[in-house]
C-alpha cells in the first residue's frame, strides 16, 4: 500500500463534466479515416514493441508504439511535425496488430504515416523512391518477364547485371531472383476450359460426393502475382482441391493485392490496383461467390488493409467475404476428417519444416497447417518457431536492409536446421524466398500437400 498523500482535492464521486461542458469537434472537416480512437486506446504497455522483429535487431528503429500512436499524437500539435524517416524501416509485418491488447490499429497508422511520408517528404527523383517503386510494382516486372520467361530467368540472375542493380539501384545482389514459370497460372487455367471447365468438374465432384448437383458452391480465386507468374503449381493445387470438394472456381480479372505497395508507402499505386480488385470481386460477391487467396499476404490485404486504407464502393463486402484457401475449406467442409483418412504417397511424402508467415497471424492461421497435417499419414510437419522470416516482402531485397533481414531470419534458419524435414513449407511467397535463401531447402505450399493427399 502506498503512503503517498492525496495530491488534489479532486472528488471522483462528483461528476466533473458540468453544464459548462461542450463537446469539441476536434477534426471537423477531415475526410480521412479517423485514427483518434485508436491513438486514444493506446495505454502504452509496449507489448507491440516486444513483437517487432525490426526493433529486436535495428538500433535505429524506435518501434511500433512510436510509429503508430505516439507519432499520430505529435502530428496533431500545431507546428510542423514531419513524419519521422524511420517509418521507412518498418517492414509492415503487422505483428504489432496481433499483439495489442487494446485494439489499437497499429498497422493502419503505420501505413497511413508511411503513405504521407512518401507522398510529401520523399524526393520523387531519388534512387530510393524509384528502387522502392520498382520493387513494390513487382507485378509489372513479372508481367513483362512472363512474356520471355527463359530470357528473364537468365537476365535477372546474370552476375554483372545484378552487381549493377545493387550499385545503381540498391537492390541486393545477395539474393537470387525467383524463377518465372514457362506457363503462367492463367495460361494453364485457360487451357483447362476456365470457368466452364471448372463448373463441369465441380458438378462431377458433387455427384461423386452425393451432394446436390446444383449446390451453391462457388469461389473466386485471387491468385495474386506470385502464383500466376512464379509458382503456378500452387494455383493448380488450389483449383484441384476446391473442385474436389465440389466448388466451381472462377478466376476474375485482378491486379496486385497491394501488399508490397503498402510496405513502401506507395498508396496511390495500391489504390489503383485495389480499385480493379474490389470492382471485380465485389461483383462476384454479390452473385454469391467468396474470394479465396492462396497467399496469406493477399488475403490479409483484401481483408484488413483495404477497408482500413481505402474508401471504395463494395470494399467492406469484399473484405468480409475473403478467406485464405485452407481456412475456407476448414470452415465449410470436414477437412480435418478428410485429411485424417488420407495418406500421401510419391513426391510429397516427406517431412516438412513449416514457417508461419507474419501475415497469417492476424488472420488466426499461424497454426493451421501444422494442426491440419499432424493427422496426415505419409508426411510430417514441424513448426520452426514463431520468429519472423525477416524478408517481409521487399524489405529484405533492399541492399541496406539485407543484413538486418538475415539477422531477423537467423532464428528461423536455426530451427529449420534442427527440424527433421529438409523441405520447407509456408503460405507466403517471400517467406519462401527467405527460407530457401537461408537453408537451401526447396519450399512448398500447404495447398500442394493438401492436393497430393486428397486429390492425386
Amino acid at each position, binding site marked *: 500500500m502506498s503512503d503517498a498523500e492525496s495530491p488534489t482535492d479532486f472528488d*471522483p464521486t462528483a461528476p466533473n463534466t458540468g453544464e459548462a461542458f461542450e463537446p469539441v469537434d476536434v477534426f471537423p472537416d477531415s475526410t480521412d479515416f479517423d485514427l483518434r480512437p485508436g491513438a486514444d486506446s493506446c495505454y502504452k*504497455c509496449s507489448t507491440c514493441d516486444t513483437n517487432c522483429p525490426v526493433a529486436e535487431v535495428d538500433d535505429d528503429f524506435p518501434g511500433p508504439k512510436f510509429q503508430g500512436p505516439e507519432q499520430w499524437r505529435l502530428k496533431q500539435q500545431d507546428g510542423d511535425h514531419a513524419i519521422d524517416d524511420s517509418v521507412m524501416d518498418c517492414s509492415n509485418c503487422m505483428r504489432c496488430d496481433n*499483439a495489442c491488447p487494446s485494439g489499437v490499429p497499429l498497422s493502419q497508422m503505420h501505413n497511413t504515416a508511411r503513405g504521407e511520408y512518401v507522398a510529401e517528404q520523399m524526393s520523387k527523383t531519388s534512387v530510393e523512391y524509384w528502387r522502392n517503386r520498382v520493387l513494390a510494382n513487382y507485378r509489372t516486372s513479372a508481367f513483362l518477364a512472363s512474356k520471355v520467361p527463359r530470357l528473364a530467368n537468365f537476365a535477372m540472375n546474370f552476375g554483372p547485371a545484378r552487381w549493377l542493380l545493387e550499385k545503381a539501384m540498391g537492390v541486393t545482389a545477395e539474393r537470387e531472383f525467383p524463377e518465372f514459370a514457362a506457363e503462367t497460372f492463367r495460361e494453364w487455367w485457360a487451357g483447362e476450359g476456365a470457368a466452364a471447365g471448372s463448373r463441369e468438374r465441380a458438378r462431377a465432384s458433387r455427384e461423386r460426393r452425393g451432394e446436390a448437383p446444383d449446390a451453391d458452391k462457388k469461389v473466386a480465386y485471387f491468385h495474386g502475382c506470385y502464383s500466376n507468374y512464379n509458382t503456378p503449381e500452387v494455383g493448380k493445387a488450389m483449383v484441384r482441391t476446391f473442385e474436389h470438394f465440389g466448388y466451381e472456381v472462377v478466376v476474375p480479372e485482378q491486379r496486385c493485392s497491394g501488399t508490397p505497395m503498402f510496405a513502401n508507402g506507395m498508396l496511390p499505386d495500391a489504390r489503383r490496383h485495389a480499385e480493379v480488385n474490389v470492382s471485380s470481386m465485389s461483383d462476384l460477391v454479390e452473385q454469391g461467390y467468396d474470394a479465396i487467396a492462396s497467399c496469406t499476404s493477399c488475403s490479409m490485404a483484401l481483408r484488413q488493409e483495404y477497408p482500413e486504407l481505402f474508401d471504395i464502393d463494395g470494399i467492406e463486402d469484399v473484405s468480409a467475404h475473403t478467406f485464405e484457401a485452407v481456412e475456407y475449406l476448414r*470452415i465449410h467442409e470436414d477437412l480435418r476428417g478428410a485429411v485424417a483418412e488420407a495418406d500421401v504417397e510419391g513426391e510429397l511424402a516427406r517431412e516438412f519444416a513449416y514457417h508461419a508467415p507474419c501475415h497469417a497471424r492476424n488472420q488466426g492461421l499461424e497454426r493451421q497447417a501444422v494442426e491440419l497435417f499432424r493427422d496426415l499419414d505419409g508426411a510430417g510437419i514441424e513448426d520452426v518457431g514463431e520468429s519472423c522470416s525477416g524478408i517481409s516482402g521487399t524489405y529484405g531485397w533492399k541492399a541496406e536492409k539485407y543484413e538486418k533481414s538475415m539477422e531477423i531470419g537467423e532464428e528461423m534458419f536455426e530451427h529449420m536446421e534442427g527440424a527433421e524435414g529438409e523441405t520447407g513449407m509456408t503460405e507466403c511467397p517471400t517467406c519462401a524466398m527467405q527460407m530457401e535463401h537461408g537453408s537451401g531447402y526447396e519450399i512448398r505450399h500447404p495447398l500442394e500437400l493438401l492436393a497430393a493427399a486428397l486429390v492425386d
Partner: protein
Amino acid sequence: MAIESAVLVVGGGLAGLTSALSAAREGADVRLVSYKQSTLRNASGLVDILGYTPDGDGPRTDPYEAIPELPEEHPYRTVGVEAVREAMALFDDAVPDYRGSHTDRNALLPTHGGTIKPTARYPAGASAGLASDTRDVLLVGLEAMVDFDAEHAAAHLRAAGVPFDVRGVTIRFPGDLRADAKITRYAKLLDTDGEVAVRGRMRPAREALAERVNTELEGEARVGFPAILGDDRAADVRTALEERLGAAVFEVPMGPPSLPGLRLEDALFEALDAAGASIETGNPVVDHDGEGRVERVYVEKHGARIPYAADQYVLATGGLVGKGVESDRERVYEPIFDCHVPHAEDRYDWFEADAFGDHQFAGFGVRTDEGLRPTAADGAVEFENLRAAGSVLGGYDFAAEKSGSGVSIATGYAAGRRAAEEAR
C-alpha cells in the same frame, strides 16, 4: 458447417491456457481461441496463490491454510483446496524452470520497486534473489531503463529490513543502443551474445556487460539485474554472467512488457501444443447461439462471422482490464454470453474515493455454481455447457490478495477438467 472441437476455450491468458491444458491432458479434443496474443507477456512471471487475506492480513506464510477462511463467494472456496493443489501440480509439471513447489509456504521475492512480495512459484532465474537468503546483494540498474532504479529499490529493501546488505548501482549497457531500446533488443543481444561496440572495439555482449558490473562489485555474493537476461537462452546468459562475476545472478521481475511473462507464455503454449490442442489467436469471439445450452460461438474476422461449435465451452476472457467484463454508464456486463455480473445500480457505488479503498469493481465478475457454471441473478445456471475461469470470475480482489495467478490456474484446471469429463 462450423469449426468443431469437443471443448472450446475462449481466452489465451493463464486461465484459458490452464483449462485447455487440463482438458487436453484428460484426452479431450480441445481448441483455444484468443482475441490477441496472450496477455501473459504483461505478467511478472511470478505465480501467486494467496499473499494476503481480503482484510489485508498478511503476508500469509501458507496460502493453503488461509483458503478455508476466505469468504464463501471466493473462487478458491468454489473449487476447494484440493483442486488448488492439483492445479498447481499440473502447472509444475507443465512449466519447466520454475521453483517453489518443494513447499506449501510462500516465498518472498524483491520487486522492481524494492518491495517484498509473497509468491508461490517463481522462475529459476529469480531464485537467487530470494529475500530470505542472507547473502549480500548488488542490484544493477541500466541508465536507459528507467523502470528499474537500482539505488531506490535497494533503499526500499533496506527499509523493509531484509536480512542482508543491499546496494544499487546504475551502469550503461555496453554498446550503442537506443535510449528506449526494447527489452527484446537486450534479450536478443544476450541470447545471441552479439557484438557490441565498447570504446571502439567490438566485444561479445555477455562479456562486456559482466566487465562493467565487475568494476562495481564489492564482494557481494548475489547480483540482480532487471529481467532482460535473454529470452530463449536465459539460463545460458545467467550462467555466463555468473562465471564472469563469481556471484549468483538473478533477475528482478519487471512491469509490462516482461520477459519472464513471455517465457512463461512460451512454456505454456509449448505444453499445450504437446498435449495436442489446437490454438488460434488474432480474432475475437463476439457472440453465441443457444439458450440454456451454448450451441456455437462466432469469431469475428474482418467483418465475417465464423461459427465455432463445441460440446463444452470455457469462458476465460479476463476481467475489467482484459475486457472479459465490460462496463458503461448503465451497467456492468459480460459481452459474449451476457452472463449476469452482480453490481450496484448506482455507478457511484462501484468505487471508493480512496485510491486504495475497498472498491466494488475489484470484485466484479460472473458468479458460478460449484461446477464453475455462471449463474443468473436468481442463482440458476445460465448455460449447462459453459464454465468460467480466471478473472472473468467475481467475488475476489486479486490485486489486493495477490491471488490472480493462483485463481486462474485453479479455476482453469477445474473448469477444463470438468469440461473434458462432460464432453466424453
